[in-house]
């Protein structure tokens, strides 16, 4: 393959080193600027070399389509799509589960109330995803290539969220048995596990409020003091939106940790106008 060798002194100029074969391919087709003939070529811009993309790619795509159709057909010949007995609203199965891509949400139902797990958290997730291009202060680096070094924060935060979503799915799909109890792969899922004996506790209300005030205080203020450059590049509005979204995302593993280690049912349980708001 041709590769970018070095940037020349004038802006936008690049030297492209390519093999003889590549040169033979490239030299006959559209070159807009001046160029030196040879294997090592100076062009005004790398983009000025063009190859016949449509002609080359459509055949490859057609082949890829054929191959995938073939794979899916063979797979479908040997693996039947699941079909259980006729739906019966009177008979709740002990192991009811959502389709796999929503099992992450179902998994969160164990740790959060349904209005949080099913409505608020997915909404925040979607809003966060939509805001991604506007939160990222860096408008130029890393476009068109995989790089961690140039965008460490963006890649690690997104990677963390993406990984968490799929870890929840994997746990929900493969590690949950009857009544959504946790089963190791070597444990028999047909044997119903006993419910844990220890009772779950709530934080006292003052403790819960103190926890959230402290938590969001630390998440919002501490990075501002420690990573001053980070705060500067983001700007005030972007910084607060990003840090609150990030803090909310981190609350999910924190709640799971508190549930499993300290048997905490709710961090904050409020009673407002006959409505229980449990976090």
């Amino acid at each position, binding site marked *: *393959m041709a590769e970018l060798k070095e940037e020349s002194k004038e802006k936008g100029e690049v030297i492209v080193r390519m093999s003889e074969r590549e040169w033979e391919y490239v030299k006959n087709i559209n070159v807009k600027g001046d160029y030196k003939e040879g294997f090592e070529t100076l062009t005004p811009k790398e983009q000025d070399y063009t190859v016949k993309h449509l*002609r080359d790619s459509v055949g490859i795509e*057609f082949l890829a389509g054929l191959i995938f159709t073939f794979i*899916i057909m063979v797979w479908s010949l040997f693996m039947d799509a699941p*079909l259980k007995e006729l739906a019966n609203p009177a008979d709740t199965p002990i192991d009811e589960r959502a389709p796999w891509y929503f099992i992450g949400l179902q998994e969160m139902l164990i740790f959060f109330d349904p209005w949080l797990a*099913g*409505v608020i958290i997915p909404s925040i997730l979607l809003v966060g995803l939509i805001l991604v291009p506007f939160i990222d202060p860096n*408008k130029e680096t890393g476009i068109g290539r995989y790089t961690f070094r140039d965008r460490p924060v963006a890649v690690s935060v997104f990677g963390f969220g993406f990984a968490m979503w799929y870890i929840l799915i994997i746990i929900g799909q493969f590690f949950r048995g009857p009544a959504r109890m946790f089963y190791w792969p070597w444990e028999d899922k047909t044997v119903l596990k006993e419910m844990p004996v220890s009772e779950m506790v709530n934080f006292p209300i003052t403790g819960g409020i103190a926890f959230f005030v402290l938590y969001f205080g630390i998440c919002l203020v501490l990075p501002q003091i420690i990573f001053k450059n980070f705060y500067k590049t983001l700007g005030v509005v972007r910084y607060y939106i990003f840090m609150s979204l990030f803090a909310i995302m981190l609350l999910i593993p924190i709640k799971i940790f508190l549930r499993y280690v300290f048997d905490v049912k709710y961090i904050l349980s409020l009673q407002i106008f006959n409505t229980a708001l449990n976090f």
Partner: protein
Amino acid sequence: MEKQSKEEDKKIDVKETQVWKAVFGDLLFGEFKPLSPFNSLMRGIAKIMQLHPYNMSVGGRRIITYTFCLGGLSVFFFSLLACTGAFLMIYYNPDVNSAYANIEDMRYIVPFGVLIRNMHRWTAHLMVMFVALHMLRVFLTAAYKPPRELNWIVGVILLVMTLLASFTGYLLPWDQLAYWGVTIGTSMGENAPLLGAKGPFAILAPGKDVNSILVGGTSVGQPTLLRFYLLHAIAIPLGIAGLMGFHFWRIRRAGGVSGPL
């Protein structure tokens, strides 16, 4: 020198073989004779479709690797789903009394019914996976940065619509798996704050809340099946197709999948 040239002769260029030329070469998008009507027709189609640039820079061509094909494969899965889905529609009736029997007919009576149903199901799973992986690729190669912000948002909407398409299709076989899976899924809407009947600060009565728009009542039943069928077979696919057209058009307007091409 002679030895070297002989070695080069031995290497077979796939694109120079007769099979390749016969299938893809002059027939599809190869070098056409100047005044061939087929040539102008194909060029016209290519111009209308605008899925690929006719020419691409060497630098742009280089960045296109396997992971850059995840979005394209999602489109392919979508068209495969449309074809198999159209076939399934012939034998399916969205009625709680006959839906399950229709599916059993497909398995045991309809010629190739079981194959087409399996393909539809597995391709749907693949599409959900590949759309998510495509989003990961777009993020990691920073393809959401200007001028592609709008396309990222359209992509997020397409991801949600893909999930919804798969979810609405989940109910149609009307078996225990479908019924209880969808019951769990739709019960989430019931718990929405303010607008759900069971959520905090509920202001709407059961059967009249936001969940009942989707379910058509207080629990999953015949109205739900019909609504999910219409969503699955008409509304969501049309929405996805329209948004996908916009998605591709924006890619070409922005000058390529990620970097300038």
